[in-house]
């Protein structure tokens, strides 16, 4: 069985400071992992994905995430937060290829960015 845990329900940072959103996963096989972002009253948008290639994945808007198998983590980071980064972020795990997807979403982390 697979699961994903987002360790913080809320994170608050100042504009220009680093962002760290934490995610741990549980999977009995090598997973595919994703981060999605949801801005207020908007649909979810794919931020980045890991599919067993490079362990450091770069996404849109300056975000990146590092897959660490030994720690079963896939934390999302950004060196310098912008006001526009305020949103809800979801860590997602997917079963391996061989059929359709059934993504498993974490509970989400709400990021607040203040001046």
């Amino acid at each position, binding site marked *: 069985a697979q699961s994903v845990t987002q360790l913080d329900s809320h994170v608050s940072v100042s504009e220009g400071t680093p962002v760290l959103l934490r995610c741990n996963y549980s999977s009995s096989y090598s997973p*595919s992992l994703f981060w999605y972002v949801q801005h207020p009253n908007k649909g979810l948008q*794919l931020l980045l994905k890991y599919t067993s290639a490079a362990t450091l994945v770069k996404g849109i808007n300056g975000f990146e995430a590092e897959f660490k198998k030994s720690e079963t983590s896939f934390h999302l980071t950004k060196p310098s937060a912008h006001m526009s980064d305020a949103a809800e972020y*979801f860590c997602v795990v997917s079963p391996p290829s061989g059929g*359709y997807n*059934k*993504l498993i979403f974490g509970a989400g982390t709400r990021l607040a960015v203040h001046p």
Partner: protein
Amino acid sequence: GAGVSQSPSNKVTEKGKDVELRCDPISGHTALYWYRQSLGQGLEFLIYFQGNSAPDKSGLPSDRFSAERTGGSVSTLTIQRTQQEDSAVYLCASSSGQTNTGELFFGEGSRLTVL
């Protein structure tokens, strides 16, 4: 349109009434998903359509919930005899159907409030 379109964006109904929520996926996408997002929760998988295959209904919470996809395109999610616990945002997503890409394109959701 260019993206996934959902209607209505907001629906307020009385307990016991039936509601229908509509989803227009991205043209050419063979896979279509319905998710439910309750306050403070992650996304809960409801149902999945892939081409002409039988849908995966394993996430539907009760027999009051049903969904159809006509002509491989538009989908309707129907909730009969609504209950207050059905209040949530219902998200539709589509994808190209390629195995394990993990990239779903989401609509902005239909917010359902059951009084």
